[in-house]
């Protein structure tokens, strides 16, 4: 059995450095603009949260391993080495104070994709044993139990029974040959079952053939959050296996940010081949159904609604217009926050921060940014499309004693769905 050591950490960083990383470090002129894009800096004013500063360990490895001057410095003993102490100190910077929101990547004047590098730097942190305990726990539960929150299939089945009993809708499980395989996040199973119910309602109305999978229902990927491709691969493989077993054509990523990143963007690269199915986010699917006229809504709200863009879905996933079109299906009074879409501010809990107890108080501080953004809109209801964002925002609002309903966009669509009057029957 191997174990986490500094050497393995440094080796992991060496593996991770590629041409973009080298170009990024070569380009940085220490202008500090990235700090202004980072809510951990803007809300605390502490310069150590400057995004590019968080990459110092990775930068040192790049310099001494991959540049002429660095190699010479190393031979002469003039280089600044990466030590265990350094990595330990940087744990806070690379985990507690980074949600992988990628806002810094959007504003860096020289075009450095900083979050791309943070994701890579975390590989070295994991390999050297410097990832935070809370995230380690989530990853361990995800691998051993099947879900970072420890949700087992039995719990899901119990929820399905509840939903079916309450709504009279059928939740299909392990249906081979279904068009769509729906994934869930543990939070949706435990905290927001209305998502699954909404899904069943919409798909029934739209005539979508879909299923859940008993061996691959968990969409989240703690490997992505902790920053270990090896662990992430194990988790993605389960979904790929489940989807291939059921021979589905599409896999639906749920209302969860990083799950989309994990399956949609990292998945094929982790398992080393193109996926034999299409990965689609639930918002993309709903928008497709809307465009095809397969779903319609009624009784539009007149209250002011605003939408929080989950970073992984909007800035890192390109799903920006879809939720806005969907929002206009449920309210006549949709107001965007000043900075939204690709420039949206993070809720403060992504990238594993919400499962990292060390970061709790910092996360609450950072939430001020979102709190003020929401307040500025004067909205009565906040809508989002990520269970993690939703939970983090709810917690944050509670912390600041603000009463504001936070709902998922899919269930909102389901609530306003025009359902044709026809005798209940199972599809096919």
């Amino acid at each position: 059995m191997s174990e986490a050591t500094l050497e393995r950490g440094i080796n992991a960083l060496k593996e991770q450095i590629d041409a973009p990383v080298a170009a990024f470090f070569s380009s940085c002129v220490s202008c500090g603009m990235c700090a202004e894009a980072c809510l951990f800096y803007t809300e605390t004013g502490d310069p150590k949260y400057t995004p590019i500063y968080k990459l110092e360990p990775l930068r040192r490895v790049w310099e001494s391993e991959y540049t002429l001057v660095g190699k010479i410095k190393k031979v002469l003993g003039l280089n600044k080495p990466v030590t265990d102490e350094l990595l330990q100190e940087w744990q806070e910077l690379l985990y507690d104070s980074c949600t992988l929101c990628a806002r810094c990547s959007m504003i860096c004047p020289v075009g450095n994709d900083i979050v791309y590098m943070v994701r890579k730097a975390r590989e070295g942190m994991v390999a050297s044993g410097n990832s935070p305990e809370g995230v380690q726990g989530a990853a361990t539960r995800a691998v051993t139990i099947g879900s970072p929150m420890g949700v087992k299939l039995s719990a899901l089945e119990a929820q399905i029974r509840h939903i079916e009993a309450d709504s009279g809708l059928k939740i299909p499980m392990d249906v081979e040959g279904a068009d769509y395989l729906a994934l869930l996040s543990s939070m949706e199973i435990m905290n927001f079952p209305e998502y699954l119910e909404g899904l069943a309602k919409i798909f029934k109305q739209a005539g979508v053939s879909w299923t859940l999978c008993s061996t691959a229902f968990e969409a989240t990927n703690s490997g992505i959050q902790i920053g270990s491709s090896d662990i992430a691969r194990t988790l993605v493989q389960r979904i790929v296996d489940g989807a291939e077993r059921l021979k589905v054509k599409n896999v639906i990523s749920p209302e969860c940010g990083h799950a989309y990143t994990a399956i949609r963007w990292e998945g094929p690269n982790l398992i080393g081949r193109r996926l034999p199915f299409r990965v689609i986010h639930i918002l993309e699917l709903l928008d497709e159904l809307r465009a095809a006229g397969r779903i319609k809504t009624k009784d539009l709200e007149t209250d002011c609604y605003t939408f929080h863009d989950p970073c992984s879905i909007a800035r890192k996933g390109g799903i920006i217009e879809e939720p806005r079109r969907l929002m206009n299906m449920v309210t006549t009074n949709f107001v965007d926050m000043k900075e939204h879409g690709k420039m949206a501010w993070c809720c403060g809990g992504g990238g594993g921060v919400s499962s990292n107890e060390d970061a709790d108080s910092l996360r609450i501080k950072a939430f001020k940014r979102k709190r003020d953004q929401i307040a500025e809109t004067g909205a009565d209801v906040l809508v989002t499309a990520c269970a993690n964002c939703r939970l983090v925002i709810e917690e944050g609002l509670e912390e600041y004693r603000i009463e504001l309903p936070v709902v998922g966009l899919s269930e909102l669509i389901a609530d306003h769905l025009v359902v044709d009057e026809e005798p209940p029957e199972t599809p096919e």
Partner: protein
Amino acid sequence: MNEPMDFLIWTRGTAFDIAVTIFVIGVILRLFEILALGRKQNLAEPKGSEFGPGMKTILTRSIPDLGTFRRQPLTVVAGYMFHIGLLVSLIMFVPHIELFRATFGFSWPGLPTPIVDAAAVLAIVGLLAALWHRIMNPVMRKITTWEDWLVWTLTFLPILTGYLAYHRMVNPYPVILGLHILSVEALMIAFPFTKLMHTFTVFLSRWYNGAMSGRRGVES
């Protein structure tokens, strides 16, 4: 006795050859070093293309995001002043164009010297503002290394000496012209091995950024 002219001849001769050689070798070497690290083939189904958005970001990143600009206008304003001032003085001043023509065999029309002069002042003011900002701003202080001070100095000196030489404020002229050329040589020698390389790698960085976002259907 003959020092000023000896100095000028040395800076225009041997020293220039050395500096150009190191500069050219260094830049090529550094670009090879970077590109050799490669980029893994991306197997994820693309939502958009890479090349076009990459090229687009090379241009669009020159325009700051409005919200961020409001938070830190000085960085942007000083950056613009310096870069525009430097670019105009570097490539629109006729003596410089003559140097490029002698090197590459082609040239372009220059600007009247009072305009170039104003550009140089713009660059100097921009650099001084950037220096002040680097000293005063806590974020910049935190992330500034000795290399940043070095690079600032190496950039400032050619513009300052160029300004002094153009205005003939130091006598004899060969001394200040020689110092101007020498400071440029110092800049060229340090260039490939410091973050001055961003002059070239910024195109790589912005392209990668734009391409990686573009692939995911995001305009970066």
